């Protein structure tokens, strides 16, 4: 049985434009040292999938740099391994392309994959899942497509830009919706992870191409419900959708505040989240450093006060600077005497001496990549 993973690195950019100005959703940094794609890739590798294709359309320089040869995920292999698939000769469908359009743009590369099953996963969900269970469920029910869903009320920004899945008591999908009728109910939310049979994928790609379909859910699944076996697979573990900058901020803070959330992601010894190794030295805490309730990557140098914050690699906090409730990306420099609260600073930002900046928990202050203040 051959199982191939397809990772969509670009989808959902429009949900979080601040962090995707020059990177894919997959290469959004998260949790001090990871990128969102690390969760998807690690889930696949930890589920025994070692033949992975990463579909990407644009802005993929940081993604390519991050993945490299794939050795950090044990995916630098002769047989299988990881391959990044930019659009082939038909060109990119452009910004905001759908899953089906992305698949169409790499149709040539896909046609060479003789997989029995494919696991398709986007990069906007943070979770640590063993995909074996959904795969087995898919096989047991001779399904064509099995969608992984999470039962959840539509809180926060959830409810925008998601797919709701309706199903009968046997787990067969009866309908798909974009907009909820009633926001107060619980829904089965598509986690953007699905298993598809190889044969069926080839069939629908052919059809999508010849009939110029754009949406897997609306143009294909909705029209063919009843003719094929579409199923739901409910997942009830930890799952975080990054649907906006606000989600990004609140889930980063949840890493600090909620030990069980942190543990569900990083505390499973047999399923580590793997990432690119940077070879940073350990973090230096100098005299005058006061750090509380924070997550800190390697390679930082801290001389000031840090509270309830997430610090990526190589961040420097100057003397008497106070950083609270903030997320500082790789190599950010916070000058002496700065005071920051509810702030997200993209990588290589420089906050010169004495900057005072504050956002709001629901609207964190955002500083773009390499910005100097």
């Amino acid at each position, binding site marked *: 049985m051959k199982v191939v993973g397809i990772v969509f690195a670009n989808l959902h950019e429009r949900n979080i434009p601040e962090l995707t100005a020059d990177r894919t959703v997959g290469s959004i940094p998260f*949790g*001090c*040292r990871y990128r969102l794609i690390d969760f998807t890739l690690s889930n696949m590798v930890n589920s025994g999938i070692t033949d992975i294709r990463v579909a990407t359309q644009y802005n993929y320089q940081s993604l390519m740099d991050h993945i490299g040869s794939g*050795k*950090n995920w044990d995916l630098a292999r002769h047989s299988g391994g990881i391959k990044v698939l930019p659009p082939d000769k038909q060109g990119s469908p452009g910004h905001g392309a759908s899953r089906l359009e992305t698949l169409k743009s790499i149709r040539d590369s896909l046609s060479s994959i003789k997989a029995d099953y494919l696991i398709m996963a986007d990069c906007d969900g943070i979770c640590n899942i063993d995909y074996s269970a959904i795969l087995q469920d898919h096989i047991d029910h001779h399904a064509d497509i099995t969608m992984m869903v999470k039962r959840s009320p539509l809180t926060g920004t959830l409810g925008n830009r998601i797919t709701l899945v309706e199903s009968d008591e046997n787990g067969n999908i009866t309908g798909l919706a974009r907009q909820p009728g009633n926001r107060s109910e619980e829904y089965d939310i598509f986690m953007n992870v699905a298993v598809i049979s190889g044969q069926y994928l080839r069939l629908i790609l052919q059809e999508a191409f010849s009939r110029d379909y754009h949406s897997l859910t609306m143009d294909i699944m909705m029209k063919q419900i009843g003719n094929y076996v579409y199923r739901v697979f409910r997942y009830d573990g930890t799952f975080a959708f990054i649907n906006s900058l606000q989600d990004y901020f609140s889930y980063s803070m949840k890493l600090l505040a909620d030990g069980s959330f*942190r543990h569900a992601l*990083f505390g499973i010894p047999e399923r*580590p*989240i*793997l*990432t690119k*190794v940077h*070879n940073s*030295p*350990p*973090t*230096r*805490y*100098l*005299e*005058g*450093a*006061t*750090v*509380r*309730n*924070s*997550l*800190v*990557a*390697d*390679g930082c*140098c801290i001389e000031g006060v*840090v509270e309830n914050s*997430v*610090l990526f690699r190589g961040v420097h906090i100057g003397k008497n600077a106070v950083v609270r409730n903030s997320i500082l990306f790789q190599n950010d420099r916070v000058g002496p005497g700065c005071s920051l609260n509810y702030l997200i600073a993209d990588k290589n930002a420089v906050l010169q001496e004495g900057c005072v900046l504050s956002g709001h928990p629901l609207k964190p202050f955002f500083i773009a990549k390499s910005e100097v203040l």
Partner: protein
Amino acid sequence: MYQKKECVAMLLAGGQGSRLYTLTEKTAKPAVPFGGKYRIIDFPLSNCVNSGLDTVGVLTQYQPLQLNEYIGNGQPWDLDRTRGGVMVLPPYQRQQSADWYSGTANAIFQNLQFIDRYDPDYVLILSGDHIYKMDYEAMLSFHKKAGSDCTISVLQVPLAEASRFGIMNADETGRIVEFEEKPKHPKSTNASMGIYIFGTDVLKEYLISDDADPKSTKDFGRDIIPKMLADGKRLFAYPFSGYWKDVGTIESLWEANMDLLGVTPSFDLFDQNWRIYSRSTAQPPHLIGPDASLSNSLVTEGCEIYGTVENSVLSDGVIVEAGAVVRESVIMSGAVIRKNASVRYSIVDSETVIGEGARVGSQESPRAPIAVVGGSLEIPPETVIEAGEMVNASRLDEIRRGGDKR
């Protein structure tokens, strides 16, 4: 098919390191953790790569498992090469005989075949027990310019300490006229750092004749260098300045770790122009708890700090529970310091648990001899481990049997 290399490095990593006591019970000295996320061998290996040397033989003998596993295919140092790269060289059985490496020179002698494959013009001999950053390429240029048969890098040491080292007495051109091993009355302060560059032909000639000499101890310092000097060969001292530390003893290992601390540390790991590479375990970021207090310390990924850490170096995955205090100490991977325990002036090896309320090491400044707790031990709550004490599994049994809480 082997590509010719100008210079091949041979790293002597077989030493037992018995003066590190329990730290080297189960591992070779070069594999002893250092500076939070490194092992001692990372320093010579990174120096090689940063100096443009891509072919390194690592000679192993004592407890090689961890070291072999650590080196692996050499990928962390970019030494996973098609032509060259890093190669672990254990002693092996030959048709006529099978011997352990009986000395530094014998170890190289037994691996002349490895050197021959790359047909190098020069061979660099390194040892795996020093912490330093050095450009071996500059030393090689010096060697070539001097028309040297053997170049030995030397460090200026205080006169008072010179009698602990091999001292190279050189003339004004740098040519070595005399070598004295640990002299009582040193004539100069040029201490050998145990780093040699030989012309390959000269090296082979001397190794072969040394092997045939039954009186020889098969050691570079004791046998090869004196013989070459007696024969009037051209030996030169290459002056090195910068940080260099032999970490062969508990006290010096502790000191070298402390040298990484401070605003301007004596040894800077953050130097982007000379990076030190290591094999990483890819753990989550470290977590600082709500009541933690940290000062002047190095903390590595995977740690969880809820207590107090001062003037210390913590490797990956160390847990310091609430109320626990770690000061002036080196704590290695995965060790756990339980509630209200206090560890001071100590080295705690990997995976060891210091029980609640235990007291390890001298609790007062100024500094007393460093206490050492070996790896994978469970120190019972309220145990007291005195300054300078070495605790391994058998010593722990004694402490337990005696109901010894002192």
